[in-house]
């Protein structure tokens, strides 16, 4: 409850301003500030939190305006209800637009979002709705959202702002909020940690459409009085939205408000004073604001102010006590697999890229309770193998079975939730989240609300011996980063972990810490498959070793046997070395 205090304060300030401002013109500015702040907040949900920059959010703004007004004109339905209809229409549109569009990568997504409002605009013009005036209602105008007192519109917009602030606040603290911020920071890592990124994007998109539609309807009644396609679907709408968010700070619920409070009064004043002699001055100011922000403060004022606090430097983390806490990876409804039984089976998996065979008929069996090492020269296909196991790649042929059921073809997040976790060669963090939040993303694979997720995350961190819950990843050493990634993995309660070069970049004592941890993880019942190059450590750490070369499995067995296998020596050092070494031993 205490965390809602700032929102309550903002609303109070809004109310105070409503009743202290005298001139009609000032009320108009206040209404506009509130309108654009709300629109910015709506945009922020999909483009700020989730990082999917949309250049077409005005589509929902316009839908809200048009549906509401057209309902008044055609059926006489009060906009208080019509607004709800507009919201529904916008949500439906969001689903229809989002389903195909989120399948597009990066820049294609941004370009596609441009197209929709343009289409709506043209269609509206064609249908004859170039100008739809809102009919003046003589008796009971309030029932039709028509007020003569401008303060009523201020309060209306304030209510919309308050509602959207609450929505944003709720998202920030929910499982969805974690999912969005994770996928914004690193979509692949989020998937591997159990976040269904497509679903998260769709939910965020639909949630962002609703407030946009509501504020569009309010805007039409408070400011426009005559709805034209350009006024609600036009480029100036998205520009205003972008400006207030970029100036104020993207990805924060306060950013749009800060941006709006600065930019809207400024541009309205300019328009009022010199707007006649200098038509287009607003556009120039907004354009200049965008350029300047991108050049000098792309994260926006809110984050800039936050960055003024001195950054913490990387310091060795305090180790947790010697009695290591238990690693708990139980999940309701999932029974443990008997030690020694086959947990993961790879049968005849092949995968090629542009004619190059990265994996060639590979068959591997991972048994419950073992540490299996995968080694091989550069380009042998090891990471490709992990990518297939994990769901990032589809095999061209062959099957992958986990606990007896096939998993090839499932999304990485689904595979994670079934029990396979993964770390990456270069640690993939969510840089803007704290260490604890990073780990919580993994915990949300099975938990649905923050408190149990938090508990699981803290337990995982304790299990790996990582403190520093409130630091950001940027302040961590390489070892601590790897511990964090492992904790995130453990928090998703896996049965099997895929570790991709977990020892890379570590000094001797770091290697020993990680190796000891891997053994403890195995002892707790979690199987481990590990790709590594640091040979002396691998040989001591793993129970079994598999060697890949040119995509084929060329050896398998106990580590000490495998490294002496002539086929393996040949793969690493070349056939000539083998003969050369034999020649050395046997000089005659």
């Amino acid at each position, binding site marked *: 409850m205490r965390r809602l205090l700032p929102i309550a304060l903002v609303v109070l300030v809004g109310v105070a301003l409503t009743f202290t401002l005298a001139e009609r013109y000032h009320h108009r500015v206040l209404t506009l500030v509130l309108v654009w702040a709300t629109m910015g907040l709506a945009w922020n949900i999909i483009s700020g939190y989730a990082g999917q920059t949309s250049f077409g959010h005005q589509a929902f703004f316009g839908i809200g305006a048009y549906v509401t007004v057209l309902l008044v004109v055609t059926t006489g339905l009060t906009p208080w209800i019509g607004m709800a209809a507009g919201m529904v229409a916008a949500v439906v549109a969001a689903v229809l637009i989002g389903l195909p569009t989120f399948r597009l990568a990066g820049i294609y997504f*941004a370009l596609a979002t441009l197209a929709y409002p343009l289409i709506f605009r043209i269609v509206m013009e064609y249908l004859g709705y170039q100008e739809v005036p809102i009919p003046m209602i003589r008796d009971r105008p309030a029932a039709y959202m028509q007020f003569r007192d401008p303060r009523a519109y201020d309060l209306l917009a304030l209510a919309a702002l308050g509602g959207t602030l609450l929505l944003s606040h709720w998202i920030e603290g929910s499982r969805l909020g974690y999912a969005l911020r994770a996928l914004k920071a690193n979509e692949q890592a989020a998937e591997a940690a159990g976040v269904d990124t497509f679903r998260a994007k769709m939910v965020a998109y639909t949630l962002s459409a609703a407030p946009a539609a509501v504020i569009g309807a309010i805007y039409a009644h408070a400011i426009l009085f005559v709805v034209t396609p350009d006024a609600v679907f036009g480029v100036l709408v998205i*520009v205003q939205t*972008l400006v207030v968010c970029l100036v104020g700070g993207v990805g924060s619920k306060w950013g749009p408000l800060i941006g709006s409070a600065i930019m809207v009064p400024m541009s309205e004043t300019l328009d009022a004073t010199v707007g006649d002699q200098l038509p287009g001055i607003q556009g120039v100011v907004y354009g200049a604001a965008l350029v300047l922000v991108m050049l000098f403060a792309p994260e926006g004022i809110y984050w800039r102010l936050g960055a003024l606090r001195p950054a913490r430097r990387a310091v060795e983390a305090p180790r947790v006590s010697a009695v290591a806490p238990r690693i708990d990876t139980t999940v309701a409804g999932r029974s443990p697999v008997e030690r020694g039984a086959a947990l993961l089976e790879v049968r005849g998996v092949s995968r090629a890229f542009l004619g190059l065979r990265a994996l060639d008929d590979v068959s591997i069996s991972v048994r419950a309770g073992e540490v299996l090492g995968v080694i091989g020269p550069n380009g042998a296909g090891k990471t490709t193998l992990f990518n297939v196991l994990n769901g990032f790649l589809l095999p061209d042929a062959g099957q992958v079975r986990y606990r007896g059921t096939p998993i090839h073809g499932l999304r990485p997040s689904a595979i994670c939730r079934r029990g396979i976790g993964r770390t990456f060669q270069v640690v993939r963090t969510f840089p803007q989240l704290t260490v604890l939040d990073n780990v919580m993303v993994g915990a949300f694979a099975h938990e649905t609300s923050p408190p149990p997720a938090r508990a699981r995350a803290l337990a995982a961190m304790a299990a790996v011996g990582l403190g520093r819950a409130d630091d950001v990843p940027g302040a961590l050493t390489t070892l601590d980063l790897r511990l964090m990634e492992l904790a995130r993995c453990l928090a998703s309660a896996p049965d099997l972990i895929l570790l991709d070069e977990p020892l890379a970049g570590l000094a001797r004592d770091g290697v020993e810490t990680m190796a000891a941890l891997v053994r403890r993880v195995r002892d707790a019942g979690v199987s481990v498959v590990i790709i590594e190059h640091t040979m002396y450590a691998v040989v001591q750490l793993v129970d079994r070793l598999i060697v890949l070369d040119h995509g084929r499995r060329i050896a398998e067995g106990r580590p000490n046997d495998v490294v002496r296998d002539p086929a393996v020596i040949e793969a690493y050092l070349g056939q000539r070395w083998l003969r050369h070494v034999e020649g050395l031993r046997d000089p005659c």
Partner: protein
Amino acid sequence: MSVSDLAQYVVTGLLVGGVYALMSIGLALIFGVMRVVNFAQGDFMMLGMYLTYFLAVVSGVDPLLGALLTIPPFFLVGVGIHRALLVRVTGGGDPQRLMDAQLILTLGLSLIITNGTTMLLTPMPRGIKTAYATQAFAVGPVLLNQARSYAFLLALVLAGVVYVFLTRTDLGKALRAAADDPEAAGYQGIDVRAMHGLAFGVGIALVAAAGGLLATYHPIEPTVAVNFIVLMFVAVVLGGLGSIPGAFAGGLLIGLVQSLTLLVLPFQLQNVGVFITFLLVLYLRPQGLFGQRLRAV
């Protein structure tokens, strides 16, 4: 409807498509080398139109020549803007954020140019009066508007010059190398950042020239940019982001689509066909007709 009617639509579509093709080549060059989607491309075209207009009205220069004369100053403007603005929006890791940042920067630039022009020159539309704008060649049953025909020919010539530049000169090949693999290009001694500036300069110059050509038959006003930027984007995506011959083909195709849309839809909706094509391409074949694989996205 008869074959000759259809032929008329096709021919008209191709004629305007030629100028679209020239505009799109500029955008494709910038994207191919710098991975920047230049939102302001349409605005530079608009400025090119105005420059051509003033040369015609003040100095009596024929707009076809005027279009060519826009090339040197706009080249310099492009290089200047690259050095002043775009180089500052450089990495910090994530290529996706970088692309967003450049999109927004050029969007801001576009706003400044469009509104600045409105402020200084007023929104009043202007036009250049030439003899050939209202005359047509008759080729069989088909009428070819003279202004559009000359514009088409000049557009082809300029596109041809660009083609020769890119395939026969060291500098042109270096541009393509920098687009293909910037790291490897650096190892050959190619200054990739200078190549970016060059690409931006050429891209802006081309679109300004296209504007000049357009001015022979299209009204000139500050808001003209927004109609054409979408056409350019679609043409470039249709041809394949980063492919220059693709952009050329895309431009011609878009001209055709626009023209043929008039067979079924009224004039105000002529761009709907273009948007639908855009969306279809994005969903069915995002790499376009000749597209390269997109790196780091």
